[in-house]
């Protein structure tokens, strides 16, 4: 069953299309990573799913309903980002108590366990928190709500790397115990890819890829070696990225399946085959030119 169904969803701001005819399904009880560069449309998409804003056109269904202005959808959905604001007259402890009334699956043991573990001060107001601590607190709300659809928009903003790791661990542990549909958006894939089941990569409001995380890791390979030998090998194939290292030496990235019949040839011809990290791959797949930043400096 799908928790989210999007068909040709478009969101325009004036002449600019933040989301452009996007279609996808997100299945129930999967952890999906929404990956894209700055300005790709991640937040716009997530806000539509959460029912905060309305698509300009297309059909978006969440829990089989139109999420915009829907109480039923919002009771089953939580949207966590770093713009959440709370009244200054509430302490962090007050917020936990108040938020708990809104979500039927709220787990107060989990909330207080994480609260203590991350050494938050119960008497502090929310607005006084540092960037990283604010993210930590908001994420505790997201986890403890145990909402059937839990959305984290750039959840680790400002967190140090130890807290990030702890957060992802906590998320995975609680997900194992209590499976639900979770979406995590990020422009950094490598720190969270192991816990993802699926990856949805968007670029300029359109879908670039939607596939199991396992498959993304095997999607592409890098080939490095003598320029002429490399060029012979990849002739007529789509190159995702190319970089000249030194004179006569070339590095290219291409889809693995394009080389399927030629692995023996690669082995024999003194070329180096290197794995492409999913982070790099996502950058290549969303780049405007296939030479990257190097192209800017080559105009001599």
């Amino acid at each position: 069953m799908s928790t989210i169904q999007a068909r040709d969803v478009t969101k325009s701001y004036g002449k600019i299309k933040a989301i452009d005819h996007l279609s996808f399904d997100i299945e129930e009880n999967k952890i999906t990573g929404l990956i894209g560069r700055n300005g790709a449309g991640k937040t716009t998409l997530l806000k539509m799913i959460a029912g905060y804003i309305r698509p300009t056109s297309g059909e978006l269904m969440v829990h089989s309903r139109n999420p915009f202005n829907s109480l039923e959808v919002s009771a089953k959905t939580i949207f966590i980002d770093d713009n959440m604001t709370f009244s200054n007259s509430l302490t962090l402890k007050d917020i936990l108590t108040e938020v708990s009334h809104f979500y039927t699956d709220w787990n107060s043991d989990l909330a207080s366990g994480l609260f203590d573990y991350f050494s938050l001060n119960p008497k502090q107001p929310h607005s006084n928190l540092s960037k990283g601590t604010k993210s930590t607190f908001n994420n505790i709300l997201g986890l403890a709500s145990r909402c059937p659809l839990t959305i984290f928009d750039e959840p680790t903003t400002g967190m140090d790397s130890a807290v990030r790791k702890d957060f992802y661990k906590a998320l995975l542990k609680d997900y194992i115990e209590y499976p639900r549909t979770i979406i995590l958006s990020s422009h950094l894939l490598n720190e969270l890819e192991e816990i993802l089941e699926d990856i949805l990569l968007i670029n300029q409001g359109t879908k670039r890829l939607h596939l199991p995380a396992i498959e993304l890791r095997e999607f592409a390979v890098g080939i490095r070696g003598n320029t002429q030998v490399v060029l012979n090998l990849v002739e007529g194939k789509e190159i995702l990225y190319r970089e000249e290292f030194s004179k006569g030496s070339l590095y290219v990235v291409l889809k693995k399946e394009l080389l399927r019949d030629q692995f023996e040839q690669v082995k024999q011809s003194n070329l180096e085959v290197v794995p492409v990290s999913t982070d790099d791959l996502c950058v290549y797949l969303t780049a405007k030119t296939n030479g990257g930043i190097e192209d800017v400096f080559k105009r001599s």
Partner: protein
Amino acid sequence: MILNNKSMKPIYVQIAEWLEVEILNDHIKEEERIFSQYQLADMFTINPSTAAKGLNILADENIVYKKRGLGMFVSPNAKHYILSKRRNQILGQMIEALVMEAKRLDVRESELIRMIQQARAESEEK
């Protein structure tokens, strides 16, 4: 074990290989229950579907088998099977790579054999 996410080897293959080593070292014995996908997911902080894929590799090779409602168990003869598989496949691949590299470096056959014998002798001493 720490998973190497820069390796050419997918995580689920690394999981399957780790479990094979656990069986080879008698940490999990034949006819004993093996970790569930959720235990593995928790231990290695990976998605349960990735862990399941690792277990499925072992199930496809009959190294583990499913008992309805009870989980996955190590097959009788699993250890023997893993040993012979590793001898044939893994050693075979390594030797193939070794021979190719030797050719590239102009190392003659007799020389290569001498190097192997020397490496063996050194490992005996340890």
